Structures are given as C-alpha cells and as structure tokens.
C-alpha cells in the first residue's frame, strides 16, 4: 500500500496547488500606485480642502457652527505639559457627508488610501514566511513527539514518528501554502470587482482635478482644424504656421497623456487583473518546478 501513496499525493497536489510567486508583481504594482498617488494626491487634496471650505461656509451662512472641539481638549490644555501631545484637532461637521453622494476629491483620496491598504495587506499575505514557519514548527513538533514517545513507550514508537514525521511536516507546509493561495485568490477576486466598477469614476475625478490631458486633447483638435483650414486656403504662410502649431499641440498632448495619473491608475488595475488571472489559472512551469521539488521531498520520506 505504501508504494501507491506518493504518486497519488503528488497528483492531487499538482492538480490543486499552483504556487505562483506574486510578491514581486505586487511590489511593482505598489510602486505604480505610489507614483499615481504622488501625481494625483496634491491636486486632489487641494480640491478636497476647497470643497470642505465651501461646505463649511454654507453651514456658517445657515448660522450653524461647523467645528467640533474634542471633549477633553480644554481640560488637557489646562494641565501641565507632559510627554504626550494634546490632541485638540477640531472635527469639521462638513467633513463626513462629503464621503457620501456625488463623486468628489475627498472620496477619491479615501479610495486611494483603501487601495494602498489593500495592496499592503495583499503583499504581506503573499510574502509571509508563515507556510515555511509552519513546516519548520511541524518539524520541531515531530522531534518533540519523538522524544515523548521514547520517554513513555520506548524506541519502537519513536522510530515510527521519526520515519513519518518529516513527510507530515512537509505536507503541513504545502497545505498552509494552499490555504494562503486560496485566500489570496478570494481577496483578489473581490478587489477586482471593486476596481472594475470604481475605475471609471475614480479616473474621471483624477482627470478632472489632477490631469490636463483632456485640455491638451481639445487643443489638439483645434490645431487639426486650423491646419486643415490653412491647408485648404492655399496660403503657404498660413499652412506653415498652422503646421508648427499642430506639431507643438501634438507634443504637448503626448506629454500630458504619458504623465497622466489616470494612465497609472489603469496600469495598476490591469496589473491586478493579470495577477488574478495568474493565480486563478493553470500553474506556470516555474510554479510546477517548485511544487514537484516539494512533492519529491515528501515521496522520499514516505518511501524510506
């Protein structure tokens, strides 16, 4: 019966357990997200502050107070200076509602923060050494069991544990890896659903506030129109001038599109989709290579 075990285990693991190494891909996606954030956040923050100022002014015009001071602020600042900084940051009553309703820059900033938190959590899950730690701890547990068996029942039982223990430890490591992948797949599918639906809205807001590609596209359309009219007029000087303007407009538009934070946003979502396809699809040769090495190790233990 023993000889049938290893190939069966191998086949089952190979079918169910791809082990794509997504740590690098996630790290690169986080770099793109950081670039997007750096390009979009200052303008979004300014716009959000402007929205907040307008909302507070509206409350003030209605004769309502728009700031709330934390309850214990006055008692804190009445006391002696200590090591802690007194947290007396006023809370705006106009702040909360901005996260509801029509898309605005405060919402865009909040969503960018959530994207950052999501990728950080995904990265931690992808690069955690936990499955290796589980395997190592299972190895130590086997040795402890072996000692216990020797102490209580003599060497016979201890030999059995020594023989089977390493395979159990390796198996536990692989099971932990499978759980990790299944969890990552579940979270990435959920996140992709959010990205797909939110992308157009977030892109619109970023483009509106933090990008000028649209402006340069309009300028380009005008330049094309001018050139066509100049060319049709038959006046050489007009056409030469319009051609120069058209080339300049094209260069500015290309530059604006290339540096647009919206482009980065699309790249982040596209990369995430590609990673999901990879983790959700069949294993690559590299994945299978790593997996077969683990299985060979288990088989060696089982066959000895």
């Amino acid at each position, binding site marked *: 019966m023993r000889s049938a075990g290893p190939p069966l285990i191998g086949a089952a693991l190979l079918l169910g357990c791809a082990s794509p190494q997504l740590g690098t891909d996630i790290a690169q996606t986080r770099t793109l997200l950081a670039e997007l954030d750096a390009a979009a956040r200052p303008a979004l923050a300014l716009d959000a502050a402007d929205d907040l100022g307008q909302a507070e002014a509206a409350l003030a015009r209605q004769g309502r107070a728009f700031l709330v001071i934390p309850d214990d602020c006055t008692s804190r600042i009445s006391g002696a200076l200590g090591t802690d900084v007194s947290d007396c940051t006023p809370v705006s009553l106009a702040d909360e509602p901005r996260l509801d309703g029509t898309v605005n820059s405060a919402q865009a900033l909040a969503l960018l923060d959530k994207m950052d*938190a999501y990728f950080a959590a995904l990265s931690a899950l992808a690069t*955690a050494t936990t499955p290796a730690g589980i395997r190592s701890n299972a190895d130590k547990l086997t040795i402890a069991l072996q000692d216990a068996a020797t102490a209580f029942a003599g060497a016979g039982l201890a030999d059995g544990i020594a023989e089977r223990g390493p395979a159990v430890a390796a198996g536990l490591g692989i099971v932990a890896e499978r759980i990790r992948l299944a969890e990552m797949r579940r979270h990435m599918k*959920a996140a992709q659903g959010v990205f797909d639906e939110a992308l157009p809205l977030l892109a619109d807001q970023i483009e509106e506030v933090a990008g000028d590609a649209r402006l340069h596209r309009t300028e380009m359309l005008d330049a094309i129109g001018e050139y066509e009219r100049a060319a049709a007029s038959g006046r050489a000087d007009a056409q030469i001038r319009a051609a120069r303007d058209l080339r300049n407009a094209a260069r500015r538009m290309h530059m604006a599109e290339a540096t647009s934070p919206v482009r980065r946003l699309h790249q982040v979502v596209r990369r995430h989709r590609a990673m999901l396809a990879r983790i959700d699809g069949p294993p690559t040769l590299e994945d299978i290579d790593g997996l077969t090495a683990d299985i060979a190790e288990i088989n060696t233990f089982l066959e000895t």
Partner: protein
Amino acid sequence: MASDLQLAISKIGSIKISTINAIGDLGIRAEAARRAGNDKLSSDLQLKAVELAKKVAKLREAEKAARRKEGLGKYIEQLDRVAKDARRSQTKLERTEEILKEVETFIRIIVRVAKILL
C-alpha cells in the same frame, strides 16, 4: 433592473460609440480622398471629423456628469472590507504557526516532567 441613471449613461455611451465609429469612417474616407489627389474633399472630411470629435468630448462630459452621481462611497467600504479580510487571513495562518510551536513547547514540558517523575 437598470435605474434611469444607468439607462441614461448607457444611452450616452451608445451615441458616443456610434459617433466614434463615424469619425473613424470619415478618417478612412479623408485618407482615400487625399490619395486620390482630392485635397479639398479630404480637408472637408477631416474638418467634419474634428467637429464630431468635439461632440464626443461633450458626450464624454455628459457621461461623466451622470456617472458622478453614483459616488465612490460603496467602493470605499467594499475595498476596506477586502483589505481587513486579507489581514485576517494572514493572522489565521500566523496563528496556526504559533499553535504548532505552543504544542511543541507543551510536549517538551511533559517530557521533562515525565523524566523527572519516572
């Protein structure tokens, strides 16, 4: 069932795509006219294409204005839940690792006690 807002967005999107297709068609015809040596016709067709492209820009603005009403609130909440869930997954894995370690320590203590007592 699609809301009135979604229907409006869909309608605008449909008109936008038809207009973009028409621009593509005008571009092909303008190029053909230029190759045939009819610069006047080519130029007229290009100007028509530019006019339509400006209309597409306006349609895109209308589409955006309609979409903005939906807000990002629900996506912020959904992504927050996904990130928290991912962190919980890691905690569960780490807990398994810790439990194995604790069991090992527990067995070692029993072995030592057994050696003392036996």
